């Protein structure tokens, strides 16, 4: 995408109009896909022949882990765009998505731990997949902390963007940790050569929960982006009004 096309597409005013049109549809899609996904995940699917009922934890764990990484890619790419093009919408996109990614990372860590206890016999192991995923959680916390660490918003955003871009190195490490190292965590079973190695009855709730978490991500990200843009406009209006007031009184007098 060329710089000018990016700028035209990423015009904040256009984004605000688009977001207000899309948000109700996204909210409906999120609610419906979660309802259907939970129905299949918790009621209309069989227990696994090895994992028993604990396989149901996968329907929340795997989509959460995916969004945790997807959201970090979003934050990292938006931060790169912000550093290169200095586009205000890119900064807003990164800042809006970071807490969502942090929440999904935490959910993936907790649900994975609760699955590990009965299946592996331990809540936690310092294997490559788990450790690199824990690092992702700290990257999110660092990003959020840096955004709020400076009185000058722009300085905070610059520092946070640099961290986010550098932190993207963790994404391939998480993805390939199960291949590069001998980990307790099992290798990929959905995104792999030759197609998923999961029975249709379990693939169905998994894919619907993927859709649900993805819709949730875009819904809350767009809501938060809209919020940040409106707050910025509000600050500009108040600033203008406060600096214009002396002239107004001078005219009145």
């Amino acid at each position, binding site marked *: 995408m060329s710089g000018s096309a990016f700028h035209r597409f990423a015009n904040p005013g256009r984004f605000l109009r688009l977001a207000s049109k899309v948000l109700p549809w996204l909210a409906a899609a999120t609610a419906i896909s979660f309802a259907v996904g939970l129905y299949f995940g*918790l009621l209309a699917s069989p*227990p696994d022949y090895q994992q*028993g*009922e*604990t396989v*149901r*934890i996968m329907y*929340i*764990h795997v989509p*959460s882990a995916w969004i945790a990484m997807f959201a970090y890619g979003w934050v990292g790419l938006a931060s790169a765009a912000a550093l290169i093009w200095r586009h205000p919408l890119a900064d807003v996109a990164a800042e809006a998505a970071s*807490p*969502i990614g942090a*929440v999904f990372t*935490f*959910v993936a860590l*907790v*649900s994975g731990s*609760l*699955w590990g*206890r*009965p299946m592996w016999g331990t809540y936690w192991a310092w294997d490559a997949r788990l450790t690199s995923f824990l690092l992702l959680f700290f990257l999110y916390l660092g990003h959020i902390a840096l955004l709020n660490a400076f009185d000058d918003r722009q300085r905070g955003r610059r520092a946070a963007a640099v961290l986010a871009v550098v932190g993207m190195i963790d994404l391939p490490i998480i993805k390939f940790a199960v291949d590069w190292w001998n980990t307790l965590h099992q290798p990929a079973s959905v995104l792999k050569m030759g197609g998923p190695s999961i029975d249709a009855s379990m693939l169905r709730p998994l894919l619907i929960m993927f859709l649900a978490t993805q819709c*949730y991500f875009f*819904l*809350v990200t767009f*809501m*938060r982006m*809209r*919020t940040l843009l*409106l*707050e910025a*406009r*509000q600050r500009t*209006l*108040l600033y203008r*009004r406060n600096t214009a007031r002396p002239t*107004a009184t001078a005219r009145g007098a």
Partner: protein
Amino acid sequence: MSEYFAMGGYAAFIWPSYGVAAILLVALFLLSARRLQAAERALDETDSAAEEE
């Protein structure tokens, strides 16, 4: 019914997984929605105040 909630003896692992996810996702959504409403309302007030001037 209680057999269903027992989840084959794994209730203590399955329900907290879904519980943590539900609480955090709902809380984040509500906080984000409330902040968005506040921003919209504040901007409306500033706009109408500007028109009166």
